[in-house]
Every structure is written in structure tokens, then in C-alpha cells.
């Protein structure tokens, strides 16, 4: 099933942050591919460059300190890094959408959640106010928010953490993106809620045939949801393969250490 | 951008240094006795104007007193009033704000209600009323301007403490058995100090101007003491004919207040220990 061309391909990406104390090479030649209908997990600890890589995919790193000295981000073969800002805006939230770790800081506290979901349609599709609103309620319904008509009229602080993350996913999905990048989408959530959100992502991926790129530090989450894994360390991809390959026959010491450090419910056999 | 800011701050610091030197060494720097009247040399223009002389570089006033000497001596009052008022208001405001914010409950409610009531009065009017009651005099002016200024400090400290006291390190200190007073001194005060410094710079500038206003109205410092405010008051009558009598003290006042404000901004930028390292 992965013989077709990838939707998203990152080729030899370099990301630098030019700070006062000297340049920091956050990403040093990362390559990866994401195919329609599959979940690619990007695993790494803090400072591994995983988030910088993902933000680079939409050129969302703040650009005075950040620079892209090399590499390509290809969406259907088109290099996003070479696009002018205006064209890039058409891609963001439309072809490629993102979900971040903290739904509280990524939602606007002063806007009703329905409006925030509708905003995507109004900017990208030029939908009418009423049409966008209706579509937003439908999107809230699709991500399993009970009573979506009522919820659409509420503000983010009136929702629980799990519901807020569902709103974020609705905002990401309403534009029918072909790639969904989820950066630690469940790290701030309780385990039982995490399970629900992961199930939701898997279900939506299957239904819409998106490519999901899931950034996480939790190998348990990877084992539960991903088809393929990329392990990052110090700005490089140190290992990649199917989940079974990487978990059962890790080639790198770093991957082995990471696997050994992961706490397990059952005593390791 | 930062270079420009730094240069500006440096210039401001220079002006302030000059002010302090002028205040401390007035007798050495002033060319003349500021109270000495020379009725024959009344309203002499500055040296570069026609009819001016180097004996009075900035000219003389309506009683023939040397303007430069008076501006130099006037800095003493300004500096004393500004720093004195800010110090008094800062100490009173910080103590009240710390207690109100950390303890909460009825002391907090009473204190903050009192602050609200005081804020409802225009502060200059309040100052006028108190000076009228206490009588004029340098120390009374300091007292009055300090008293009318404490509310700003108390409010900022209190709101800052309200957020600080829920920080983990304060919880940790409480769990360790550290007394409330020590927590305030060790964990709260150092973290509100930069905010205090910012308000203080604004307050010093405001107090200097307020003292000038009071003196201008004749309610500040007794007539014998030279202040920029009373010079302005004297000079306004002659603005049409002899501008220098009012303009030079006014300029001194403006430059001082500006320099203090710029220094305050710069202080706030460097106050954060994480902002610049190495």
C-alpha cells in the first residue's frame, strides 16, 4: 500500500537558528516521507529537532532567527520552502494542517470555538458566514463533541482539556487537509482522554485517507497508532522503518536505550 | 535598535550624573550666590544675546540674581524631593502590598479599599490640601508627595505577589517551614523589586514636577530656598520680554524628568536575570 508516491516528502532538510550566541543547527539533514492513509510517528526527546522539522514543513518557525540553509519540503512534488508567503498561506490549514500540544494556548480565548473552526473555511474556501458556521458545527460533531450546536457557541475556557483538543482537531480537519501534522497532541491530556483522542485520529485518518504525521516522545503511543517510525536525535534521523522493525530489531544504540528507558506496565519478557 | 537604546540610556545616565554632581557640589559649581540680588543688573540676557555678559552666562532674573547659579542650586531641592518621596512611597507601598497580597483576607480588603478611596482624589489637590494643613517646608513636601504616591507601589506589588505566592517555590518554602516574613523577604521582595524600580523612576520624575507645581503655586518650599518651580513662577511674568528667566529652569526640569524615565525603561530591560547572560 505504500508503493504510491508520498504526499509529503522532506528531503535533506536543514534548519538553523541564528541566535546572538551563535548559530544552532537544530535540524541537520532530515529526510522522511508520509503516504496517504498511513501514520508516520516522529519520535525524539526534547532538543531532538522533531518540532523544528515539523514547523519547517509549513515554514512556521519564526524567521528572523530561523533559516533554511538546505533541503526541500515537497507536497505532491512542489517545494514549500521555495513558495512565496502568499502561496504558502493557501497551503497552511488547507493542504497541510497542524495540531499542537497545548489546546489552551493554540485556541483564541476570546473567540467562540465555532467561529475558530469556521475561520479556516472562510479564509480558504471563501465560504459564507452562515455556510461556514453550519460546516463548523458538522466538524465538531464529526470529532465526537456531544451537543455541537451548543459547544460551537462556547469559549475555550468552558471546555475540558479533551474537548479543547477535539476542537483543535476539528479546526485542522475542516479544511480536508491531505496531511495532518500532530505535534504531541495528547501529552497534556489524561491517559483515558489520550486513548480517546488517539482512537479518533486513527478513525479520521481511515475515513479521509489522510497522511498523519504524529510527533511524540512516547513509544507506547507509537506502538499503538503508527505504521512507520522515524527516530530523531540531535537533529538527525537515527533510525527509520516499520514499527515492528524498529521495536524488535533496533539498529542504533540510541533507539535501544530509548526502548529500555520506556516504563512498561508488564514486566519485560 | 538595541544600540540606539543603549546610547539613549547612556545619555540619560549622563544627564542624571550631571544632576547629582550639580546638587552635591552646588557651592563649588555655581558662579554666584543664588540669593544675591544685583538690582542694577536686573533681567540681563544670557551671554550670547546682545547686552549679555559672561558674568551671568544664563542671564539674571527680575531681582538681578544669577539664573545659572539658581538652576544649579535648584537641583538640590528637586533631587531631594524626588528621591525622598519615591523612597517613602516605595517603602510604605511595598510593605502594604506584600502583606495584602500574601496574607489576603481582611487586611487585604481594608488596605485596598483605602487605596481606592485615595485614588479617587486628584493627587495634586490632595497634596495641596495637606500642605495647607501641615504648612509648607521641604520635608513636608517630601512627606506629602510620598504619601500621595504609595498607592501605585502597593497595587503593583500586591498583584505581583498574588501571582508569585502560588509559584511552586513559595509552596516549597512553606512546606519546608520557612516563616511568612522570611518568605516575603527571600522569595517575594526580590522578585517584585524590578517592578518597584520601574514605578520609582516614574514617581521620581512625577514628584519633581509636582514639587515644581507646588512651589509655582507658592505652596511648596519657602521662598528663600531656590527651586525650579518657584523660578518658573517668577519667570512667567517676564516670558514676553525676558524668556531666559523661565526657560532655563523649565529646560532643567524637562531634561531631568526625561532622563529619569529613559533610565527607568533601560533598568526594566536589564532587570531580568535571564535576559542577558555571558
Amino acid at each position, binding site marked *: 500500500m505504500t508503493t504510491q508516491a508520498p504526499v509529503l516528502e522532506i528531503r535533506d532538510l536543514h534548519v538553523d537558528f541564528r541566535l546572538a550566541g551563535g548559530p544552532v543547527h537544530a535540524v541537520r539533514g532530515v529526510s522522511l516521507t508520509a503516504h496517504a492513509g498511513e501514520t508516520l510517528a516522529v519520535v525524539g526527546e526534547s532538543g531532538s529537532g522533531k518540532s523544528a522539522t515539523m514547523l519547517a514543513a509549513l515554514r512556521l518557525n519564526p524567521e528572523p532567527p530561523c533559516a533554511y540553509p538546505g533541503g526541500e519540503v515537497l507536497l505532491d512534488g512542489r517545494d514549500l520552502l521555495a513558495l512565496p508567503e502568499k502561496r504558502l498561506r493557501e497551503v497552511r490549514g488547507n493542504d497541510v494542517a497542524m495540531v499542537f500540544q497545548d489546546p489552551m494556548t493554540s485556541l483564541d480565548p476570546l473567540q467562540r470555538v465555532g467561529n475558530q473552526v469556521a475561520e479556516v473555511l472562510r479564509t480558504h474556501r471563501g465560504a459564507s458566514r452562515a455556510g461556514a458556521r453550519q460546516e463548523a458545527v458538522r466538524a465538531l460533531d464529526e470529532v465526537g463533541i456531544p451537543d455541537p450546536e451548543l459547544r460551537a457557541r462556547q469559549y475555550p475556557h468552558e471546555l475540558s482539556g479533551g474537548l479543547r483538543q477535539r476542537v483543535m482537531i476539528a479546526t485542522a480537519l475542516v479544511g480536508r487537509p491531505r496531511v495532518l501534522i500532530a505535534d504531541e497532541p495528547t501529552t497534556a491530556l489524561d491517559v483515558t482522554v489520550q486513548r480517546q483522542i488517539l482512537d479518533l485520529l486513527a478513525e479520521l485518518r481511515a475515513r479521509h485517507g489522510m497522511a498523519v504525521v504524529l510527533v511524540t516522545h512516547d513509544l507506547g503511543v507509537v506502538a499503538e497508532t503508527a505504521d512507520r517510525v522515524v527516530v530523531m536525535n540531535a537533529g538527525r534521523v537515527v533510525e527509520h522503518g516499520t514499527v515492528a522493525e524498529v521495536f524488535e530489531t533496533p539498529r542504533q544504540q540510541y533507539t535501544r536505550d530509548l526502548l529500555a528507558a520506556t516504563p512498561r506496565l508488564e514486566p519485560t519478557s | 535598535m538595541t544600540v540606539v537604546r543603549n546610547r539613549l540610556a547612556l545619555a540619560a545616565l549622563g544627564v542624571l550624573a550631571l544632576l547629582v554632581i550639580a546638587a552635591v557640589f552646588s557651592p563649588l559649581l555655581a558662579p554666584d550666590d543664588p540669593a544675591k540680588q544685583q538690582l542694577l543688573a536686573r533681567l540681563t540676557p544670557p551671554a550670547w544675546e546682545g547686552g549679555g555678559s559672561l558674568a551671568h552666562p544664563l542671564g539674571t532674573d527680575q531681582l538681578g540674581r544669577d539664573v545659572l547659579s539658581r538652576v544649579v542650586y535648584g537641583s538640590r531641592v528637586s533631587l531631594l524631593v524626588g528621591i525622598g518621596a519615591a523612597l517613602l512611597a516605595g517603602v510604605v507601598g511595598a510593605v502594604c502590598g506584600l502583606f495584602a497580597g500574601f496574607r489576603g483576607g481582611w487586611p487585604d480588603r481594608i488596605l485596598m479599599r483605602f487605596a481606592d478611596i485615595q485614588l479617587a482624589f486628584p493627587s495634586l489637590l490632595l497634596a495641596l490640601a495637606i500642605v495647607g494643613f501641615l504648612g509648607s517646608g521641604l520635608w513636608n513636601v517630601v512627606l506629602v508627595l510620598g504619601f500621595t504616591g504609595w498607592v501605585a507601589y502597593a497595587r503593583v506589588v500586591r498583584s505581583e505577589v498574588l501571582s508569585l505566592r502560588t509559584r511552586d517555590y513559595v509552596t516549597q518554602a512553606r512546606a519546608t517551614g520557612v516563616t511568612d516574613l*522570611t518568605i516575603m523577604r527571600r522569595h517575594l521582595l526580590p522578585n517584585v523589586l524590578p517592578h518597584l524600580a520601574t514605578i520609582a523612576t516614574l514617581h521620581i520624575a512625577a514628584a519633581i514636577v509636582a514639587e515644581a507645581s507646588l512651589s509655582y503655586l507658592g505652596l511648596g518650599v519657602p521662598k528663600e530656598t531656590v527651586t525650579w518651580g518657584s523660578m518658573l513662577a517668577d519667570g512667567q511674568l517676564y516670558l514676553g520680554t525676558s524668556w531666559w528667566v523661565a526657560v532655563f529652569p523649565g529646560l532643567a526640569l524637562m531634561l531631568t524628568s526625561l532622563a529619569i524615565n529613559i533610565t527607568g525603561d533601560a533598568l526594566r530591560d536589564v532587570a531580568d536575570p535571564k535576559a542577558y547572560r555571558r
Partner: protein
Amino acid sequence: MTTADTSRRTTTRTTLLELDGLAREFTGPGTTRTIAVDDVTLTVEDGETLALVGESGSGKTTLTRLLLGLLDPTAGTVRFEGHDLARLSPAEMRALRAGMQVVLQDPYSSMNPRMKVTDIVAEPLVTHDVTYRGRRARARLRERVGELLESVGLPARLQDRYPHEFSGGQRQRVSIARALASSPRLVVLDEPTSALDVSVQSQVLDLLVELQRQHGLTYVFVSHNLAVVRQIADRVAVLRRGRVVECGETATVLGAPRHPYTRELLAAVPRPDAYRTRTRTGTGTGTGGGTTGV
């Protein structure tokens, strides 16, 4: 051994901390009431690790504040070393605090950013031992802080640094060093590793186990991560909506949970070997291969 003088009267040598019918209500705006902790009865034995497990809103944070005496209960008692905390004078309570310390979750907000590590770690020392106060005692104090830092695996010379110069894991070690400074018997660990990377987390957990062995410490370990709890705890108490729904030996509770909520919690934990048996909704078509059995 330092100053916590008379309160060091061990009652039965077995029970260190007793919570009896403990409850705490909060009154919100208007007359709304929330019962954060509801009739909790628990004991913590000397030298053991009891884990408090629960999700957000379970009352675990309120419970730790109650047992540390930072919050007054609306009903019930907390006994530490046989002393009812509610009956102690403020001075007695402060003295007692030398015996119970806490390590909090967030290694960034748990330290005063304006204090050097020396003074952060030394705070319990100078609070409970007057001989560590003042300029004369400075050399001795620095020496003690150095020892404490080394005991948690940090070089003694780092004490002249500020907190922001440390990584998350190093900061958590500093926090542990501070907690040990007054030679406590009980240490409450409030999600001490949940903000850390996995590799750092496992090092910190190993350190905690080692320190417990060396000093005969008793831990109350608050966590939402059952996999971590399995590694470190002797007993587990599962909290839900302010109540203990299940309490027992770790192996029993995690291996054969009786309460449905415990089962739900266990089922939700992502397992690193889940890829072998995955049949969940929408999980690709499975690339074949993977299920070689092993």
C-alpha cells in the same frame, strides 16, 4: 538527627503517616461547593513507597497539600509520626516540617530564579538549624550543599549557578537534594518525572530508589503514569473524584484490578508492545510481517 528534636518520637516504628476520614471542600463563587477530597483513609508505613494515582480532578494535588499541612481539612485528621497536625502550634508545625519534604512536578517553577543553587538547596538547612545561619557558617553550609548535590549525582561546584543554567533533569536533581537537606523521613514526590524526557525520567527514578535505600526514606509518590508507578511503588491507591476507589499491593492492583475505574485506567495506558496485537479502529491494514510471534 539535626534539630527536629522532640518530634522524633517514633510511635510504633511501622506507621509513619495516617490519614483518617480526610475531606476537603472548596467554596467557589456564590454557594457552589466542590468536594476535592472525600473521606480518605490511608496509612503510609515507614520505609515504603505509596503511590497516589489519579487523573486531573481526582483530588491528588489537594490530598498532598492536606498531608503536608499546607491546607486545612474540612474533616478528618492527618497524623505524622503520631502527631495530629491540626493540634500543633504554628511553631511546632514548622519544626515538624523538617521531617516531611516535597519535590514538585515542574522543575522550572519550583526554584526562585533569583537564588543561587547553594541557597536553594540550603533553605531547609537554615530554616531548621540555626547553626547554619550567618556568614560564619557559610563555609560549612557550602560544604553540606556540595555533599547533597553529589549525593544526587551533580558536581558540588555547580552550586554557584542559577536555576536557569540547568536542564530539566538536573533541576529535578537539585529539587531532590533540597528535599533531602533537612534529613526528612517522608518525601512527597508530586509527579517528579512527568515533565522529563523518558531517558532522564528513568535515571531520576533509579536515583530515587537508591536514595530511599540509603536513607531509609518513605515516599508518597503522586503520578498519573501507571507504568512508572509499577516501577517504583510498593502499594498503590487509586483516586477518583476525591475518593480512594482501590488500594493495595502494586502487583495486585495492576495485575488484578477490582474496581472498574482501575481497569479503565490500565486499559488506556499505551503499551510499547501494542504493535504486535493491534486490532484497534482504523489501524491501517497492518503491513503483514510484524506478527511473527516471537
